[in-house]
């Protein structure tokens, strides 16, 4: 299930529309993840405040969406482009890759709430494939 040329164009066009709200998207997606999938809180025991929209959540949402923005730029070769991020997640953070799917789902939910008319089924499938490819690239160095 690799990204077609159409998928890449769709993702880039949609990203152009939503990039201005990247910080809000990141905050909301992370907030939802921590509430809807409480097991994900185990990775953030060092944060003072895990409530939706808290300062650490906002800051980390920015970091995560920065990574997504970078991935959009490197959409033609995600494995190479996300190499150092993969090493970070594999050797330092050691986030179970199952959680990439969980965060991806919450990003999709946020996109639906914030861009109900633009997030058509066609955009949905391309973005879903893109986030899956991103997650795969992030898992490259795990073993």
């Amino acid at each position: 299930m690799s990204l077609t040329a159409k998928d890449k164009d769709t993702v880039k066009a949609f990203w152009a529309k939503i990039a201005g709200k990247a910080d809000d998207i990141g905050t909301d997606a992370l907030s939802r993840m921590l509430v809807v999938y409480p097991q994900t809180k185990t990775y953030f025991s060092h944060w003072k405040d895990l409530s939706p929209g808290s300062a650490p959540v906002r800051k980390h949402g920015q970091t995560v969406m920065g990574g997504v923005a970078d991935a959009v730029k490197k959409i033609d070769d995600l494995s190479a482009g996300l190499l150092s991020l993969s090493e970070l997640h594999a050797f330092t953070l050691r986030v179970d890759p199952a959680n990439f799917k969980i965060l991806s789902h919450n990003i999709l939910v946020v996109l639906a709430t914030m861009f109900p008319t633009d997030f058509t089924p066609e955009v949905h499938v391309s973005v879903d494939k893109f986030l899956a490819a991103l997650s795969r690239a992030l898992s490259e160095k795990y073993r």
Partner: protein
Amino acid sequence: MVEWTEQERTTITNIFTNLNYEDVGPKALCRCLIVYPWTQRYFGAFGNLYNAEAIMSNPNIAAHGITVLHGLDRAVKNMDNIKATYAELSVLHSEKLHVDPDNFKLLSDCLTIVIAAKLGKDFTPETQATFQKFLAVVVSALGRQYH
């Protein structure tokens, strides 16, 4: 048995009381067939599913989307006994329709996205948690009688 708080019961009842089945049902099923195209395998007799436009204008798909969404009504009315309530439907999906139960999760994810788009900001993290919990229980009950 699944425990529901009063808040959760209210959330679910409110979502379904205010639901436009004729709009959400078709949208959810169409989205599933477009985002997860392998699910089209169950709809060979439904006519033209060649591309997204064909799917979204297919009246058989739209009608079926409404049917499927109404199938959730019995869970809303029997939240304390969803497992038993869906025993018969589970047998139907297994023995007559031969639907891979993994597909139930795919459709429920698409329904979540459609409801999120409808409710926007009102689809709070807590509402999302409750709605996904509800759908997960239904999905589990529908897969229960497979053997």
